[in-house]
């Protein structure tokens, strides 16, 4: 088992390296004088030259790439001359907001998505199936930023159940945090919920037709046991992959949803980065999201081996 995990960890390294190179290349694509852009619009000639030397933009690209990779290895994502602080620091400050948003919406999407998918499969071709799949189809079809605005209109402005935006730290007030994150998490999780329930349904349908399900019934086990334990544990193996993919969808969606709900997270930081052409921040944010995707997939694979003995022992 540990051999398997080790192998997966090692195979993630080249992907991480490629991702880092991709983020590096991105900045090279910026048209015009990168140093002038990064230094900011108000920078003097001397300042631009200083930035050029600091960033090593006067040196050949292989050396710069090398510096970038070595910096990354030490957790250094570069320096933002517009924010006047290290990118890593700026991102770390915003990360809790984005992580709690993404985490809550994935929990919401997984719980509701799997439940709907399983119900739809168990009551295949009944009104329950139709209803669950309509909800799922709504989830994958509705634009999340619009859904968020409508949710604010109804639940925050109209009914006054939740605040219309802003972040509350859970260490300050846990209930405040939950109520502040409820609408954003719902908004962000809706698409993943739809995707997860559509997929869960087809996987579950497949599992319910398997011989071992008939065996479980022949043993006299109840419906709950047959579906909730025997079939679901098998179904969760492929469903996990989709949850992993959904997580990356969620991290990217956070950029938009944070803007709808005025949450000062990584997404908004990046958005400001785009508006102010603060490329080091944009680059750092992209890298963090891509890394989180690779790490989540790694976790998914490790969970796999815990769920599926065939993977564990191979």
């Amino acid at each position, binding site marked *: 088992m540990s051999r398997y995990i080790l192998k997966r960890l090692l195979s993630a390294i*080249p*992907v991480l390296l*490629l*991702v880092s190179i*991709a983020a590096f290349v*991105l*900045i090279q*694509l*910026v*048209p015009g004088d990168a140093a002038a852009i990064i230094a900011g619009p108000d920078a003097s000639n001397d300042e631009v030259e200083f930035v050029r030397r600091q960033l090593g933009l006067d040196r050949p690209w292989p050396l710069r790439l090398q510096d970038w990779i070595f910096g990354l290895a030490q957790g250094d994502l570069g320096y933002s001359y517009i924010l006047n602080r290290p990118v890593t620091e700026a991102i770390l400050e915003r990360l809790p907001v984005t992580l709690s948003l993404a985490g809550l919406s994935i929990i919401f999407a997984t719980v509701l998505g799997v439940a709907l998918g399983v119900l739809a499969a168990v009551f295949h071709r009944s009104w329950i199936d139709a209803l669950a799949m309509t909800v799922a*189809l*709504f989830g*994958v*079809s*509705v*634009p*999340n*930023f*619009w*859904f968020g*605005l*409508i949710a*604010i*209109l109804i639940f925050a*402005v109209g009914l006054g159940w939740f605040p219309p935006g802003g972040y509350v730290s859970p260490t300050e007030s846990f209930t405040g945090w939950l109520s502040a994150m409820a609408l954003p998490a719902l908004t962000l999780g809706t698409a993943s919920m739809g*995707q997860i329930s*559509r*997929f869960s*349904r*087809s*996987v579950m349908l497949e599992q319910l037709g398997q011989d071992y399900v008939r065996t479980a019934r022949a043993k006299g086990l109840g419906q709950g046991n047959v579906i909730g334990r025997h079939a679901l544990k098998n179904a969760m193996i*492929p469903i996990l992959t*989709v949850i992993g*993919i959904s997580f*990356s*969808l969620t*991290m*990217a*969606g956070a*950029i*938009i949803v944070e*803007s709808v709900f005025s949450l000062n997270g990584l997404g908004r930081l*990046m*958005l400001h*980065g*785009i*508006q102010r052409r603060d*490329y080091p921040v*944009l680059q750092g944010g*992209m890298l963090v*999201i*891509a890394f989180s*995707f*690779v790490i989540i997939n790694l976790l998914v694979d490790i969970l796999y081996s815990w769920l599926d003995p065939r993977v564990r022992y191979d």
Partner: protein
Amino acid sequence: MTDLTAFRSFSTRLTTRMSAAHLPLLIGGVIFGLIVLAAALGPFLTPYGPEDTSLMERFKGPSLAHPFGTDSFGRDILSRVLHGGHVSLGIGLAVITISAGLGIAIGATAGYFPRLDNPIMRVMDAGEAFPTLLMAIALAAVLGPGITNVILALGVAYAPRTARIVRASILVLSQQQFVEAARASGAGPLRIIGLHLLPNAMAPVVVQMTFIFADAVLAEAALSFIGVGPPPPAPTWGNIIADGRTYLYSASWITLFPGLAIFLTVLSLNLMGDGLRDLLDPRLKKVT
């Protein structure tokens, strides 16, 4: 119970699957057709231009004269939504063309030449580690806003998905006898791929293109909304919603109608994708 499957394949499947696939395809097709028609005929359907302002007619709620109401400049929302459809559908179409072209080229190369498979697919892995939307945002941010850049960004961002599907089909197909036969008769790789492999690998690609279209409409709207899409005053659906956002509490119709337009378009495309998948390739998993 070996004969069971054979028997089922022609009784149950033929009857129930046909109708099960046709219903979503039909509903989706009709809705999508109406949307395309409305977008195409947009200029003739309303008396106002999408950018015609009128100080007298600001913030008017839905009425007979302005079924979808007007915005802060007195522009007719219906006209803007219809024009937005023009832009959104056009972008969607361009995106699926580019992503299919790139995806097929990359996927076929990886699938047919075993030596290139691993390096190409690792690059695809890295590409997919950036969520599509993020990649599009980054490219649009670097290249600058504008319709062409949005199309390029999304087209490139969706290519790995198509590539993966094409590669998988090609891998299976190239093991088959008719390909061996073609190879033995001296056909070159280009001929084999183009003439023998791709035509047989198209069904899942078509299904995927429908879903990518749906995703591209959503992504373009999101890009416009956060300000990295086609710049205002271009009446894209995302731009109209971004405009309306400031007046969300007082003039919610500005936000409501373009959102519904996006929702219906994406919904109809997803329905068509579901139907096509069940019809063309029942075994494809429901990952979109």
